[in-house]
């Protein structure tokens, strides 16, 4: 590593420096790095400092490092990710297709050949694919390395910069002017105005530098730090401790263990409420829209009690529940306790809760009830002692009845279509009559029954579907977001402006630079030289192009 000594001011610069950090004189042999040799104006990015990555290239580590240090690589990664993200929206992702279909079949059926190719390429799960995650990670790596490689030299350069600048540096600034004669009075006026505009003024042998908003130069690095924190937060979600994501169905009146809490918390669903628009006076204003769209849901709500289990040491043992919290869960208003949050996310209406039956004589056309009984569908009794000496035994219970090759079975454990095989013992009889009864079904097994079981009524209840979340990464993600916002605002709403004043014989050379908003800088200079005879700076970029 060879140092470069500036031949004008003698400052020792690191190899790869384009503009001397002290006086700004272009270092001849490095002008190609920022493309200055073909332009009248100096490229001022990173103030012409040596970005280390451009200067060494030896070990494999250095090569990898340099690869990621390049902004070109960073932008390329962003563009690839952008295109990949767009591809993922061409067809719905797997999580948005109906839950009960096979993806391999669904994509082909719905979208034909395109769908099949899409599925084969794994684009149905694009955003959790290894290569998409790798792309995001590579962007992260690029952010870290590119920032380190730039912020350090830039910091040093801005710290070391001197008010006195080389003439070739000044002449090749975008804003530049020469004034032959400047009176002392005008000089004082300009300085006063610049101070009034909140410029910091440093002086070196009559050479002046007015500077403001340097901190905006750190904006990009601050926002990159924010992004990295955000990515770290996202990474931590893979730790089971940091991030829990589960789901639970709870029936009205049911108390259930909240999954992933090791039986520590329970939830009771007291009531599930579904409201739609159109009932109240207030909703009249939506009448037109409702007529066009059909019914619109107004509120999904679960009134719930959260319990803490004080008794459980072993999973499955009888819980000892203490009320922890009581409240309602609505969309947009999750219930929160001890780091957990429960979200209203799904529901099923009118699941059967209980059914009541009556016994009547087969021949009785009026179907007069001789006895009746109610079966609790989640906890049916084995036997029912009834009026008039009847006795009913449940032989078989099919909560979700269907016929499988002529054999009655249950499809699930949920009482969606309950059916029973009853043994009916008429008064003083030892031999039962066998009856099959369900919704819309009533079959006499032997064909010789004297009594018939008929459905009298049923009660239904709703089931609420709640998402269970515990996410300790949220504060980290939030912090990352805040830092990012601070960084972008700092970098974009403030500007680093510098005005160099170079005494030349009886006059002044003025040169100025800003990292953005040249219009604003021009206004500042206009204000500064107001009511003086100093020549306004010229935008040399105009000459450059024409």
């Amino acid at each position, binding site marked *: 590593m060879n140092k470069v000594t500036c031949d004008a001011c003698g400052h020792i610069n690191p190899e790869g420096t384009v503009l001397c950090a002290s006086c700004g004189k272009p270092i001849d042999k490095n002008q190609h790095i920022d493309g200055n040799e073909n332009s009248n104006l100096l490229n001022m990015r990173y103030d012409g400092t040596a970005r280390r990555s451009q200067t060494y290239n030896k070990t494999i580590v250095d090569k990898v490092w340099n690869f990621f240090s390049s902004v070109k690589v960073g932008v390329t990664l*962003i563009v690839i990710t952008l295109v990949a993200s767009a591809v993922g929206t061409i067809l719905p992702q797997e999580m948005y297709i109906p839950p009960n279909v096979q993806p391999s079949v669904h994509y082909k059926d719905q979208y034909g050949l395109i769908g099949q190719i899409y599925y084969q390429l794994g684009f149905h799960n694009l955003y959790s694919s290894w290569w998409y995650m790798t792309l995001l990670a590579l962007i992260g790596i690029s952010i870290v390395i590119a920032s380190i490689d730039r912020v350090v030299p830039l910091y040093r350069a801005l710290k070391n910069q001197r008010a006195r600048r080389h003439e070739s540096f000044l002449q090749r600034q975008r804003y530049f002017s020469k004034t032959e004669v400047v009176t002392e009075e005008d000089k004082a006026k300009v300085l006063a105005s610049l101070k009034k505009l909140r410029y910091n003024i440093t002086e070196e042998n009559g050479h002046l530098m007015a500077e403001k908003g340097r901190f905006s130069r750190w904006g990009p690095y601050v926002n990159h730090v924010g992004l990295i924190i955000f990515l770290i937060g996202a990474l931590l979600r893979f730790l089971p401790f940091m991030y829990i*994501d589960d789901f639970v169905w709870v029936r009205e009146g049911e108390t259930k263990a909240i999954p992933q809490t090791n039986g520590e918390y329970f939830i009771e669903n007291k009531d599930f409420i579904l409201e739609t628009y159109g009932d109240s006076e207030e909703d009249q204003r939506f009448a037109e829209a409702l007529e066009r769209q059909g019914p619109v*849901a*107004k509120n999904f709500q679960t009134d719930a009690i959260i319990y803490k289990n004080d008794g459980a040491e072993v999973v499955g043992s009888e819980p000892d529940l203490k009320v922890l919290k009581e409240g309602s869960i*609505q*969309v947009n208003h999750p219930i929160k306790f001890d780091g957990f949050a429960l979200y209203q996310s799904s529901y099923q209406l009118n699941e059967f809760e209980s059914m009541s039956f009556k016994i009547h004589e087969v021949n009785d056309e009026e179907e007069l009830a001789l006895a009746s009984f109610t079966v609790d569908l989640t906890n049916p009794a084995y036997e029912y002692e009834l009026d008039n000496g009847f006795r009913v035994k449940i032989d078989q219970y099919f909560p979700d009845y269907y016929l499988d090759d002529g054999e009655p079975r249950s499809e699930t454990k949920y009482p969606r279509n309950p059916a029973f095989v009853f043994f009916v013992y008429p008064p003083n009889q030892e031999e039962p009559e066998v009856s099959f009864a369900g919704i819309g079904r009533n079959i006499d097994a032997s064909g010789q029954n004297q009594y018939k079981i008929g459905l009298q009524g049923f009660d239904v209840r709703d089931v609420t579907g709640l998402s269970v979340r515990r996410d300790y990464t949220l504060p980290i993600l939030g912090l990352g977001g805040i830092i990012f916002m601070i960084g972008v605002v700092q970098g974009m*709403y403030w500007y680093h402006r510098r005005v160099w004043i170079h005494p030349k014989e009886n006059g002044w050379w003025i040169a100025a630079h800003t990292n953005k908003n040249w219009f604003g800088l021009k206004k500042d200079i206009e204000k500064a030289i107001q009511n003086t005879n100093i020549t306004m700076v010229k935008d040399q970029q105009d000459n450059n192009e024409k």
Partner: protein
Amino acid sequence: MEDLISLSSNFLYLAFIMYLLATFFFAATIRDKRGDKKSKTLNVISISITIIGFLAQTGYFITRWIASGHAPVSNLFEFTTFFGMMLVFAFIIIYFIYRLNILGLFTLPVALLIIAYGSMFPREISPLVPSLKSHWLYIHVTTVSLGEAILAVSFAAGLIYLIKEIDQTKSSKRTTWLEVIIYTIFSTVGFVIVVSVYNAMDYSATFEFTFNNEVTTVDYHLPPIAGPNDGTLLTEDRMDEIFQAPAWMQGVNAARKFNTLIWSLLAGLVIYVLARMILRKRIAAAIQPLLDRTNSDLIDEISYRAVTIGFPVFTLGGLIFAMIWAQQAWDRFWGWDPKEVWALITWFFYAAFLHLRLSRGWHGEKSAWLAVIGFVIIMFNLIAVNLIIAGLHSYA
């Protein structure tokens, strides 16, 4: 209540007319070559009319909010008109920084077109589904549309730059693409005209067709150039379709939307061809002389400045607020819903834009093309994602 709603829509009409009027005044300032006191008065009149229009639209917004009980940003009509309003607001801000009339001549028509476009969708006050019932509705939507509106100003400036700087003496890829942009704008005009005309005529034709093994009907409000796949016309006295939409088009309304698209493109083509015939040169070439006195560097800077102002606002509204709300409403701050993904794409795009400009020196024309592409992405997310890719955000 009825009064309030009609008052609200009157405000919107007023705003629309004011914007239209302001556009003409801004055009007059461009043609005016005197640069004396009179032209200054003209400037003041132009921007004043714009501000009156903006206030009128604010009136629309507030009265509609009161009438509906929620921020009127919840369906495609409300959101699109609000975006137009924010575009005017962003223009007013930028105008007071740079005092550039030409920007008004380009931004206001875009805003007009956006509002007119939005008005083609159902305009009645609609109720909020539970997931939208949150303060974050207006916090998120207003910030994101303000951010996108500021970015859209960057597009207007970029377009001015391109029309001024691209060499129109010979035909090239750049001139062609510029004409494509103009044609797209004309197609939007075409859409507004065609839909308005047929709405006024109360046109309706019903088709019956099979979708997902179920027989469904769809109402066409434009004559069917493309009918539903395997559909039959039910309404009498209506022309039958010219051809059928391809089978791979998904969704009950896919064929109808496809038909609307064809109509818009055709109407745009008619307008474009007429304009070419009258002007006898490329549209951009015809506009170019108007921009003679415009400073390209300043336009380039405005385009860039708009991005630097808009990008943080967009990030805040479109990503951060969006995530906070999504966490509350859908129990996850990010779910790769198409609308979310396109917000991310927009963000990636402008991040790339900024890096290219800062580090790789993409100024002037390159930067202007990027500003145009950025706007295309924004409009795609605002409109196409809702209409084509249905997701959680589909209101229409």
